[in-house]
C-alpha cells in the first residue's frame, strides 16, 4: 500500500539495470516457491542417494559410492584416490574437456549456422544439400568412432571431430527449421519496403531464426558433451570421459562418480552460457515473453 509520503508513482521511479535488476529479481524470487522447490528437490535426491548407498546399502547399490564418500574425496586436500578439487590433475581433465568442447562447438556453430541459414534461404542450395544432411544425420556418432580414429592422428583429432560432427547436424537442422519458421508476411513486408536480397537475409532471415538457432545450440552443446565423453572413453589421454573410464579400468568407483558429477555441473554451466548469449541477442523476445508472463 502506498501511503501519503510515497505515492505509487514515486516508487517506480527508475527501472533497475545490471546488478540492481539481478538483485531485484533474486529478492522477488524468494517470495515464490521456485527457489525452495529447487533446493528441496536437490536435497531430496541427495538424501535418497545417501540412504540407498550408505545407510541401507540396498542390493545393486553396494558397489556405488555414496554422496558422503564422493564429497569427502572431492573436497579432500589429500585425496585418497588421487582426484579432488585440490589436485592439479582434476583441472587438467576439466580443462581438456572444456577446450575440446569449445573448439568443437565453435566449429559446429561457425559452420552449422551459416549452412542452415543458406539452406533455409535458398531453395536451390537446400535441394542440393538437404538429402545429404538427412542421410548423414541418422548415423549414430559412435558409428563414426573407428573412422575418426583412422582419419585423424593422435588423441585430440578424433575426439574433436566426433563432438563437432554431432553438434553440427543439430545446429544445421535447427537453423534450417528456424528459417522455415519465419512468417511469410515478414518476407513480404521486407519486399514491399524495398529490400534487396541481402537486406532480407540480414534483417529478416538472421534475426527471425535466432530463437530456433539458440534452442538448437542448447541441444547441440549437450550433444557435443555426449559425444565428447563417448569419444574420450574410446580414444583419449585426458578429459572427464577418460577419467571415468580410467577409474573403471582401475576398479575405483569414487573418481568415476566425481567425473560424472563434474560433467553435470560443467555441462550445466556451458548451457547457461549459451542461454545467456541468446537472451542478450534476443532482447526483443525476452521482453515480450516477460510481458506475457506478467
Amino acid at each position: 500500500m502506498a501511503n501519503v509520503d510515497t505515492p505509487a508513482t514515486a516508487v517506480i521511479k527508475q527501472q533497475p539495470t545490471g546488478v540492481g535488476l539481478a538483485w531485484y529479481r533474486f529478492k522477488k524470487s524468494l517470495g515464490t516457491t521456485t527457489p525452495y522447490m529447487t533446493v528441496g528437490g536437490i536435497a531430496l535426491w541427495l538424501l535418497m542417494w545417501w540412504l540407498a548407498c550408505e545407510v541401507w546399502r540396498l542390493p545393486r547399490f553396494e558397489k556405488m559410492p555414496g554422496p558422503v564418500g564422493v564429497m569427502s574425496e572431492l573436497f579432500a586436500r589429500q585425496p585418497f584416490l588421487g582426484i579432488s578439487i585440490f589436485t592439479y590433475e582434476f583441472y587438467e581433465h576439466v580443462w581438456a574437456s572444456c577446450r575440446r568442447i569449445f573448439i568443437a562447438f565453435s566449429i559446429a556453430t561457425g559452420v552449422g549456422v551459416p549452412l542452415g541459414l543458406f539452406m533455409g534461404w535458398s531453395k536451390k542450395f537446400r535441394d542440393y544439400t538437404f538429402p545429404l544432411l538427412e542421410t548423414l544425420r541418422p548415423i549414430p556418432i559412435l558409428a563414426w568412432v573407428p573412422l575418426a580414429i583412422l582419419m585423424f592422428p593422435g588423441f585430440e583429432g578424433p575426439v574433436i571431430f566426433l563432438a563437432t560432427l554431432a553438434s553440427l547436424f543439430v545446429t544445421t537442422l535447427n537453423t534450417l527449421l528456424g528459417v522455415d519458421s519465419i512468417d511469410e508476411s515478414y518476407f513480404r513486408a521486407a519486399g514491399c519496403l524495398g529490400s534487396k536480397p541481402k537486406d532480407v537475409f540480414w534483417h529478416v532471415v538472421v534475426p527471425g531464426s535466432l530463437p530456433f538457432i539458440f534452442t538448437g545450440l542448447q541441444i547441440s552443446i549437450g550433444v557435443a558433451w555426449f559425444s565428447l565423453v563417448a569419444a574420450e572413453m574410446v580414444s583419449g589421454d585426458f578429459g572427464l570421459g577418460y577419467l571415468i573410464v580410467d577409474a573403471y579400468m582401475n576398479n575405483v568407483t569414487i573418481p568415476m562418480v566425481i567425473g560424472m558429477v563434474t560433467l553435470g555441473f560443467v555441462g550445466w554451466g556451458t548451457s547457461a552460457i549459451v542461454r545467456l548469449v541468446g537472451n542478450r541477442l534476443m532482447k526483443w523476445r525476452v521482453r515480450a515473453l516477460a510481458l506475457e508472463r506478467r
Partner: protein
Amino acid sequence: MDQRVSPKPQATKGAISIRNVTKIYDPEGVNVLAVDDCSLEIGAGEVCMIVGPSGCGKTTLLNAIAGFHSITLGEIYLDGELLCGQEKPLSDQGADRVVVFQNGALFPWKTLMDNVAYGPIVQGVMSKKDAREKARHMLAEAGLGDVAEKYPGEVSSGMARRAEIVRALINDPKVLLLDEPYRAMDALTKSIMHEALLEMYDRTKVTIFFITHDLEEAIFLGDRVVVMTTRPARAKKIVEVDIPRPRDYHILSSERFRTLVQETKDAVHEEAIKAFEAGERELA
C-alpha cells in the same frame, strides 16, 4: 474517369487501373478461378474499400498489386505504368505500394523506431541518421513518441498497427494496401484507429486500397465501397460515399450513414449467402 471522387487537389499520384484481371489457382491439379475478369478504376488519392464474402478473392487482388502473386490474365496499371500483365504476370515489389498486413508484420526484432526507419535505409534514399530523425518525427506525430524505442511485442496491438502504417507512410508510397488491418480489434480501439487513419490520410492523401469485412468501417473510411461477388471475384456494386470529409465518429449515427450501410449490407448479404451455399474453403 474519376469525376465522381470528391476533389482532392493534392492527390496527383496513385491511380490504380485493374483491367480484366483473371486469376486461376492450381493448387492440386484442379483449377480454381479466384478472380474472373475483374475491372476496377481507383482514382489518385481515393480511399477505396473492398468488401465481399470470405475467401472471394479480395486478397488475391491485393497480392497481385503488391507483387506477391502473379495474375493469369488482364493487366494492372499504376499511374499509367504497367505493374503486371500478360508478358509480366508478377509485378515487382516496391516501396511505392506498401502493404499493412492482416496480422501485423512489424519486425518483432526491431524497435518501432528501427522498423519505421528500415524502408528509407535499405532503399538507400536516406542516411541512417536522417531516416531515424524522420522516423522519430513521424512516430511522434502519430502519438507514438513515447514508445518509439520499444519492441512491437511490448506495445498494444493498436499502437503496433499504427506504427506499421507509419512504417508504410515514411516511404511516401503511391498506394497504401491494407488487408483487414483492424480485424482482431475491439470496437473502441477500432474507432480510435479509424480516426487516426483518417487523420494520416488527410495529411498525406495517399491512395488507399482497404480490404475489410466490417461494413461500417467501409462506409466510415471510404470514398467508394466496392462490393465483390463471391468467388470468382468481380466488382458487383460500387457504393459512392457522399459524406463530406473530415469525418468524425458522430457521422456513425447520421441518417445518411445508416442508409449507405444498409445499401452495402444488402449487396454483400446476397453474395454471402451464395458463398455459404457453395460451402467451399476460403482461399487466401
